[in-house]
């Protein structure tokens, strides 16, 4: 296995890219290579392979490997890397790159994401396809640099001002850090909407094998006739979020348009993994790194004959309400235990889905604490009584 970093120098330059890809294509149809790398690096490579050619960021732990990785890779492919003077500036640089038609990304961790919220609201209002990575750490305030899931509300309920939604993807492995970031650019383009990768310090820092096709093409793009590239062969156009009303459009009409788009995303993009939910007495619900620990616990308990299932939301917005409600309605006795690295944020969405608070339980830790397999098992046994 190679360190992902080591292979960087073999990645073709952007200008030679097509001819080299052709060469690879003619020799090997599906050449998959395996690497060992951190989640932060996998996320960066996923973005590069998706066709991201603009990155702006600001140093903050625990996502610094991602920024460093992008600085190397962008130079290699002739893309743009900017270490911005602030998180605020970084998100606005990404706004500019996206408005000019490029695939653009920024990343940060919790306190930095708070600073970006103004820009994210403008990006959502202007319907710009942008990918934002949040490698969450303990809060509130400066908190600490340990893994946390305490930014769930901020990510899924808006975060900045106004009525808007991000598409929020929750990877749970180094492989998914790559896969979800790769796909995030296609989703962002498809819906003209910002996409957030909601990871945490554990996912960012841990190393696992990563596999991807060496000649993987950029993730699916769309034409961007709205991009501001100069009014050549067409009339001048504007991308803006100030809508004072008048003959073109009122702000309410713009909001109705956004809500219509969000409905389409809800219809088409909900993703959740389920394990052994049929016949389960208790279903564990967790996302991200927490779902990995939860899954180990569920497996161990099933070996001991306990009827425990698992649901792992992969999109946090749109949230899989229908999928969870479907299970809750089919089996009127099944109970849900939501486990999070927070005071209980996703549990509110699970309660909305189940619509029976007596059947929804929560266990979580805060400030960088991680619920252990044993602690989750104890909670399951408590509920089973």
């Amino acid at each position: 296995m190679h360190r992902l970093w080591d292979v960087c120098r073999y990645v073709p330059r952007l200008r030679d890219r097509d001819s080299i890809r052709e060469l690879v294509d003619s020799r090997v149809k599906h050449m998959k290579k395996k690497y060992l790398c951190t989640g932060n690096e996998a996320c960066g490579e996923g973005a590069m392979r998706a066709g991201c050619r603009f990155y702006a960021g600001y140093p903050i732990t625990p996502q610094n490997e991602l920024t460093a990785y992008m600085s190397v890779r962008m130079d290699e492919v002739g893309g743009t890397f900017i270490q911005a003077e602030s998180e605020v500036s970084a998100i606005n640089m990404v706004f500019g790159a996206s408005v000019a038609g490029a695939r653009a990304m920024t990343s940060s961790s919790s306190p930095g994401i708070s600073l970006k919220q103004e820009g994210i609201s403008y990006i959502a209002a202007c319907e710009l396809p942008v990918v934002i990575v949040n490698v969450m750490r303990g809060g509130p305030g400066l908190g600490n640099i340990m893994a946390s899931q305490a930014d769930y509300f901020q990510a899924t309920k808006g975060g900045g001002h106004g009525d808007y939604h991000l598409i929020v993807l929750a990877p749970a492995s180094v492989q998914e850090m790559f896969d979800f970031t790769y796909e995030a650019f296609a989703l962002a383009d498809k819906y003209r909407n910002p996409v957030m990768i909601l990871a945490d310090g554990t996912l960012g820092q841990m190393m696992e094998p990563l596999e991807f096709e060496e000649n993987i093409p950029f993730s699916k793009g769309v034409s961007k006739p709205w991009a501001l590239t100069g009014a050549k062969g067409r009339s001048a156009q504007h991308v803006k979020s100030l809508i004072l009303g008048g003959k073109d459009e009122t702000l309410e009409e713009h909001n109705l348009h956004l809500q219509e788009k969000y409905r389409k995303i809800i219809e088409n993009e909900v993703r959740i993994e389920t394990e052994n939910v049929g016949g389960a007495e208790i279903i564990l619900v967790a996302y991200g790194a927490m779902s990995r620990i939860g899954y180990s616990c569920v497996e161990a308990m099933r070996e001991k004959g306990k009827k425990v299932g698992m649901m792992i939301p992969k999109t946090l917005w749109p949230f899989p309400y229908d999928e969870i409600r479907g299970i809750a309605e089919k089996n009127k006795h099944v109970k849900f235990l939501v486990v999070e690295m927070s005071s209980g944020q996703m549990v509110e969405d699970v309660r909305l889905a189940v619509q029976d608070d007596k059947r929804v339980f929560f266990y979580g830790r805060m400030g960088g604490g991680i619920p252990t397999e044993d602690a989750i098992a104890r909670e399951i046994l408590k509920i089973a009584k």
Partner: protein
Amino acid sequence: MKKIVTRPDSMKDADMHYCAGCGHGIIHRLVCEVIDELKIKETTVAVAPVGCAVLAYDYWGFDTTEAAHGRTPSVATGIKRVLPDRLVFTYQGDGDLAAIGTAEIIHAGNRGENISVIFVNNGVYGMTGGQMAPTTLLGQSTMTTPGHRKASRDGFPIKITEMMAVLPGVVYLERTTVTSPKEVMKTKKAIRKIFDIQLAKKGFSMVEVLSPCPTYWGMSPIESMKRIENEVIKEYPLGIIKDTAAM
């Protein structure tokens, strides 16, 4: 009948929302005249600020976006890096550029971003009703400096253009005004200069235009022009502040 003067091609036929005697209308037109002269209407992307000029895209017939308050140079940076062969400029007021966007303008300059900045300084927040701006003169009365601006309470007028001069990435800085046809032509020349500098890929350049705000200065348009000549210029002297562009 022979037409002697007409609207620039890159200027839309629209009624402006600006108050009587405001300088924005003049400066908007100068930008359009220069763009027409350079024949770059189809390759220009502008970034409008938050402030009175937020609606610039209603008057400009070239691609324009609008940034969050003060983030204008960062948005322009993103556009220019993606489209290095387009002319990218920001148009910012003194609240946008010299207060909430201080970090963005300083660092865009320090990176030597190959963009042009038109900085309209009227010493007041016009869009929100005439509050004190960072550039408001000492002794000037505004909505938030009842009586007058006092250094002990409100600090001093900021000379951001002079501050920018120490940055190696900044190659051209000039301060002009629009108080007379002569000064208007000098302003046009300065705008042409900073666009030429960008097209020659020389780096970051900026023109600060001292502009009247009769409404919130509580003066007639003519009195406002006289105030610039008699008072404002003393604090903010006109002329080329820096030129290392070698053009």
